[in-house]
Each structure stands twice: as C-alpha cells, then as structure tokens.
C-alpha cells in the first residue's frame, strides 16, 4: 500500500531530513513511526501528504508513483487519505458537525448522505451529542477525536496521524489508540508518528524507528518481507 524506495529529503536550508529510507506497509497494516524529535517523522508524513516532494527516491502508494503526480492532481490524491494532526486543525468558525462534514462537501456528497456519514463518524468516536458545539468548547481529547472523525468520515484507505496523542494524558492516549486499531480492523492502512514509546510498547504493532533521518529499524523481524 505504502512503499518508500531509497527516499531522501533535503530541504532548501540544507537540512537532510530523510536519508535513503526504505520500507513497505501492506494494505490493512498498522504501524508506528517513532524516534527522537527532529528524526524526520513529520517529514515522512509530509511526503505522504504531498506537502513536500522527495529530493530523490520513489514513493509508491497503491502501486502509483507519487513523484509523477502533478500539482493539479494533488487534491484528488489527498481525498483518498485521512490525516489526523497533532494540533487538530479544526476550524473554530463552524460547528463540530461542519468540521467533520468538510471532506464530504469537497468530495461532493449529497446533503442527506453527508449528514448520515458525519453522524456515523461522530458516533464512532463517541461525540455524537457534541455535533452542534464549537470545537473550541471541547476538551483536548474531544478535539482530537473530532479530528479523527474528520479523517475517517470519507472512508479513506490510508489513515495517517502525526503525534495524535501529543498533548493527552495516558488514559486518553490509550483511548485514541484503540480508535485507530478499530479502523485497522476494518481494513484501513494506518501509520502513526509518535514519540510516546511507553504507549506503543504496550501495543502489539509494528514499530519503525527513525533516527537522524535514517530508518534504523523498519519494524520487520529479520528474514521477514
């Protein structure tokens, strides 16, 4: 589903964020990407979101080479992915419902079905009763769950998350992680960048370790893949 072939990323400032990174994530697999701050986790996710382009190497999604994607086809590519951000990226000028409905509006869903899907997504994260609230009135954990609802409302095949538990206490973090596992169980490929080693060590999932831009451990047992 996701495949990195010798991917390097050098920023204009000269910073080499990723150095010849190789890994492959199967469809329906869930993996954690960890490592110290500045190791390149965010850069890797940005490449997957086409917020940045690799300096060299190839990035294949579902067999398609992302390097060949023109600027004008970025929107349609992004619609196939769900993303959860550390800072939620919720819009405070509209309700929780309208925030979650945004991807569906962009995809052009009819209003009736938009309502049905948004409520299903909010129900999935246990926030159905907050649909009319402004995101600012919610707690940090609730905001993050709204962000997750928005990321999955259009049923993407790939779900990316950048430090989704960054500002949350351990109990809330475990809740969020179990949400992600639920999506994986229905066939979504999930990639979560986090530095919360304690949390992910308790979960039985593949862990990839990035350090200084190098994939020190791609989480596959020796002899595998």
């Amino acid at each position, binding site marked *: 589903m996701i495949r990195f072939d010798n991917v390097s990323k050098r920023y204009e400032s000269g910073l080499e964020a990723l150095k010849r990174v190789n890994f492959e994530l199967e469809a329906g697999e869930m993996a954690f990407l960890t490592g110290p701050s500045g190791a390149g986790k965010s850069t890797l996710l940005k490449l997957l979101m086409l917020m940045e382009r690799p300096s060299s190497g190839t990035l294949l999604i579902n067999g398609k080479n992302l390097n060949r994607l023109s600027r004008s086809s970025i929107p349609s590519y992004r619609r196939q992915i769900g993303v959860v951000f550390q800072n939620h990226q919720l819009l405070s000028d509209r309700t929780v419902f309208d925030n979650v409905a945004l991807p569906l509006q962009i995809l*052009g869903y*009819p209003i009736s079905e938009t309502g049905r899907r948004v409520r299903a997504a909010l129900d999935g994260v246990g926030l159905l009763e907050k649909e009319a609230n402004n995101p600012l009135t919610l707690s940090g954990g609730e905001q993050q769950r709204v962000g997750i609802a928005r990321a999955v409302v259009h049923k993407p095949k790939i779900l990316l998350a950048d430090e989704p538990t960054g500002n949350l206490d351990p109990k809330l973090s475990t809740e969020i992680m179990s949400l992600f596992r639920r999506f994986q169980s229905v066939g979504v490929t999930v990639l979560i960048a986090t530095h919360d080693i304690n949390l992910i060590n308790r979960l039985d999932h593949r862990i990839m370790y990035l350090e200084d831009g190098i994939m020190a451990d791609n989480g596959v047992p020796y002899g595998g893949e």
Partner: protein
Amino acid sequence: MAGSNKANREAPSRGARDQKVKLSDRWRSYRAHHSSTLRTTLAKIFGEPIQTLLTVVVIAIALALPSAMFLVLHNVQQLGTGIESSQQMTVFVEKTATRSAIEQLSEDIEQLAHVASVTYISEEQALEEFKASSGFGSALQYLDKNPLPAVFLVQPKTTNTAEITHTQDLVAAIAALNAVEEVQIDMLWMQRLLTITEISQKLVLAIGIALGIGVLLVIGNTIRLAIQSRRDEIIVVKLVGGTDAYVRRPFLYTGLLLGLLGAMMASLMLVTCVVWLGRSVNALADLYQSQFHLVGPGFSGILTLWLIGASIGVMGAWVAVMQHLREIEPK
C-alpha cells in the same frame, strides 16, 4: 424537486457500499456548494456591516463618478441632436421678390449639391406659425402689414463635423442666388459643440478606466485581507483535498457581491442626482422654451452599470486570489 427527492432516498443504500460519488450527485452538490457559498459569503459580508459599507461606498463613488459624467455627456448630446436639426439653414427671401422669382429660387436651391431637402414657408405661413408659437398673436393684429419675409428651410446632407466645410460652401452658393436677402446658420457653434463632445467622451472614457482600475484594486485589497484572515481554513481545505477552484470560490463570490453592491449603490446615487437635478433643469429648459429634459441612466444603463461592477468585482478577486492563494500551502 421530485427528482432530487428520489435521489436522496436512494443515496444512503448505495453510499454505504460504494465510496464513489455519482456524477449527477456531484453536479448537484457542485451547485449546492455554489449556493451555500453564496449564502455564507452574504452572511460574512453583512456580518461586518461597517467594513462592508466602507468598501461598498468607495466602490460606489468610483463607479458613480464616471457614470455621472457619461450621463452629462449623454444629455449634452441630446441637446446636440436638437441642434443638428438646426443645421438646416434659413434662407430669407427679399420682401420685394415676385412669385415667379421665388419659384425660380426654389428650383435653383434644389439643384445645388449637398442639399437634402428644401421647404418653402410663405409670408402668411410664417405669420401663422409665429402667432401660434410666440403668444404674441393678439399683438400682431395691430400691425397693418405682415413684417415677416418668406423663408426657405434648406436641410444640407452633412451630418458630421468633417463635412461642415460643404455646408459653408452651400451657404455661400445660396447667398449668391437672386432674391436672397440673407442665409443664416449657426455653424461655428455647432462645430465647437461637436468637437467638445468628442473630446469629453475620450476624457470620460479615460477617467472611467482609471477609476475602474481603482475599483479593481480596492476589491483586490479587500479580498487579499479576506484570504489572510481565512488562512487556517484554506490550509485545512487544501489538506483534506479541496481543489483550487473550491478554495477560490468564496473569494470570487465576495468580489462579485462587493462589485455588485457598489454598482447598486452607484446607480442609487445617480438616480437620486437625476431626480434631484431634474426639476431644476426642466424648469430652466422651460424658461428657454426648450424641449430639453434631463435624461436618466435608464433601465439598460443601470443594468450595464451593475454588469460592469460585478465583472470588475470578479476580476479584482481573481487577481488577488491568483496572487495569494498559491502562497498558502500547508506546511
């Protein structure tokens, strides 16, 4: 209506299985986004009434000014058409001329080049006309003989400034004929008026273009500020796969509405001025016994102004959007 209800009923069962969105649904939702964008844009515009009013007033003044000048010019031209008909020259026949001499003169004038038509007004007809139009009818009966001469009204073929020299030649030719007392035509005045109108037209066009560019910049700047204040929203929309057109749409609508509102206010200003001035102008025209009356912008004029305002609005927004939207990319 019935069609959309049917589609809505069918949608859930299909949507649950299939992530793809049907083309007809997409088209419907495209239109729905247009109308919802229009609604939210209107709400945003009227949600900041003072800011909007300031912008709209600036746009309105910039649009009303050249429109008013154009209107003044249009009215002067209307005054000019009255004068064009007086391009006709009046040939006064000598009082002593015999009937046969007058007939001969009529033939002679008709045979001259550049003569469109010749109308003969006898002494008696002239007197009747004078009685009817001047209001001195009762005073005239105290005169023992008709003081008015017979007159030929000669309409030359010329209609524009370039051919005015022909008219001058014609005047000279007629004046040289027998039994002609005098030929009258106020040509110089006419020539000046036509030239001045031409210059003024160009001037108004230039001022109009300059102020149009001003409106473009005002709207562009307003949109630029709107883009900056909605930066977060643009980033999120781009992140979840909104196309450039989707991101652009609310701003183009804002430009369209600002331009249109400005044009509406400008037309209100114009109509108010015309009504306000109209009474005095008509009173003045009456004093000069002129048929002239102030012409307003008219329905088509107002519609044109709205169209111009709306197009400038969209163009201004487009320029701003093209400049700034690409800068805002999720980082």
